[in-house]
């Protein structure tokens, strides 16, 4: 029997007296993509940051099934363990690629950094792996020694994805991965992400305000409003047959062209 990968129990985050997100519970299964949607200020990013251990929640637990099959509460890991987990078994794709990339080292080194961090000391092997990953995210091999600042927004985002996936993580967090890109580039990126997620059997949690992204990428989705999850279910069900008035409003707000 397959076990879940992540189990979230009653996650609550207060900023002082203001609520970030309240009482969020769910399970995430291997290979599953979960979208968290909602308007600005609804607590999506707070939730994502809490789940990825960037923020410490006020209460609640996030249990993660480590590679050795042990369930661990990620907030109780030592800092060394947490940082190791974050750079090997997890990935984090930021909305702004500059937050997730080293802008002043080459694309190859950006991809290779995680490998070197886990102890790879063979230049030829690191470079070969970097080339392979650049190819998989459709970046030309002759750009391997260029710095990301010479890349377009879409290329930077793809580079960030390669950098995260090179150590074969099992769980990837994405914060508005297509934000700030024009629609044709968005479409290509989504195509690529969908391919990689399927091919590698990644589990992913994607925060987005764009319902189209949720529709294309995710299997399940959660709708947030005022820090609470108001509706959750299979993506197609939620989008085609929304139950909550707010979700109905959200779905009907999509512009049709």
């Amino acid at each position, binding site marked *: 029997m397959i076990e879940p990968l992540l189990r979230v129990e009653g996650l609550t985050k207060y900023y002082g007296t203001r609520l970030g997100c309240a009482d969020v519970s769910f399970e995430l299964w291997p290979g599953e993509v979960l979208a968290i949607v909602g308007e600005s200020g609804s607590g999506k990013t707070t939730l994502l940051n809490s789940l990825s251990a960037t923020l410490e929640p006020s209460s609640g637990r996030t249990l993660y099934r480590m590679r050795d099959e042990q369930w661990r509460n990620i907030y109780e890991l030592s800092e060394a363990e947490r940082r190791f987990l974050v750079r090997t078994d997890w990935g984090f794709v930021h909305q702004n690629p500059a937050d997730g990339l080293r802008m002043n080292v080459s694309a190859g080194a950006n991809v290779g950094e995680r490998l*070197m961090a886990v102890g790879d000391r063979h230049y030829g092997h690191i470079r070969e792996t970097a080339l392979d990953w650049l190819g998989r995210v459709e970046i030309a091999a002759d750009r391997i020694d260029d710095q990301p600042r010479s890349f377009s927004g879409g290329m930077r985002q793809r580079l960030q994805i390669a950098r995260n996936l090179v150590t074969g993580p099992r769980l990837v967090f994405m914060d508005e991965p297509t934000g700030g890109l024009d629609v044709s580039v968005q479409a290509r990126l989504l195509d690529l992400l969908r391919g990689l997620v399927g091919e590698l059997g990644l589990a992913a949690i994607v925060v987005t305000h764009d319902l189209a992204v949720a529709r294309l990428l995710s299997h399940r989705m959660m709708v947030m409003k005022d820090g609470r999850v108001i509706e959750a279910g299979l993506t197609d069900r939620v989008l085609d047959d929304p139950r909550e008035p707010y979700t109905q409003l959200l779905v009907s707000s999509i512009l049709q062209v």
Partner: protein
Amino acid sequence: MTALPQYNFAYLDEQTKRMIRRAILKAIAIPGYQVPFSSREMPMPYGWGTGGVQVTASIIGPDDVLKVIDQGADDTTNAVSIRAFFAKVAQVQTTTHTAEASIIQTRHRIPEKPLTEGQVLVYQVPIPEPLRFLEPRETETRKMHALEEYGLMHVKLYEDIARHGRIATTYAYPVKVEGRYVMDPSPTPKFDNPKMHMSPALQLFGAGREHRIYAVPPYTEVVSLDFEDHPFEIQHFAEPCALCGATEVYLDEVILDDRGGHMFVCSDTDNCEERRQAGHVGSLGTGREAAE
């Protein structure tokens, strides 16, 4: 009128010296770890060796013999003035001979003559943090040292190979001390890195502006970082020293005229002089020293 006020022995007051000695002891106890200390204003600008001078001032005693080198030379401005400084404020004997010195303060070089037990080598360090140019946040670099996250150091070496086809870092080449801390050996050429490994002398590093002291105790393992398929290498010179004919030493290029004339000479002036006195003559040497 009573006598004019005097400097305390070796310029610094006794409390300051105690504070610096405590930092030095801690640094020796944790090889390669950067110990913060409360660096003082010295009567010279930052960048001229204020860290090294404070370390020297804290460990020097009336019986010590001091040698100061800058770029390997005993006769450059910085070396001469620091030697004169300690001759004045500590009345210690100074020397240019490596073998005679008990304390050697240096910028850039480790003397060619092997150091012995009981000698102390004091380095003037401008930037003690080897990760600085890769990670600007001090909070983050400290955490990386604490958790032994040194992957980033190899990112720098990777960049070198990707850009130049080999590890092009020639000075301040990062080393790992006793299998634990990654350390910047200050701006010494990587030619000198192997001399730090298992050295019988105590090596102390002082960074005045950055308020850091670190140390390599005698007989400590110092390994230069590298890749399996791009191993660490020191510089090699095609020709021997033009004055003394020495090979296997670090050479400086000296421009002779405006028509492209140049020569390579020993960077360690003391070593070069000793060799010439012993009768070694290079291609441009006169051999006069031996006759004198």
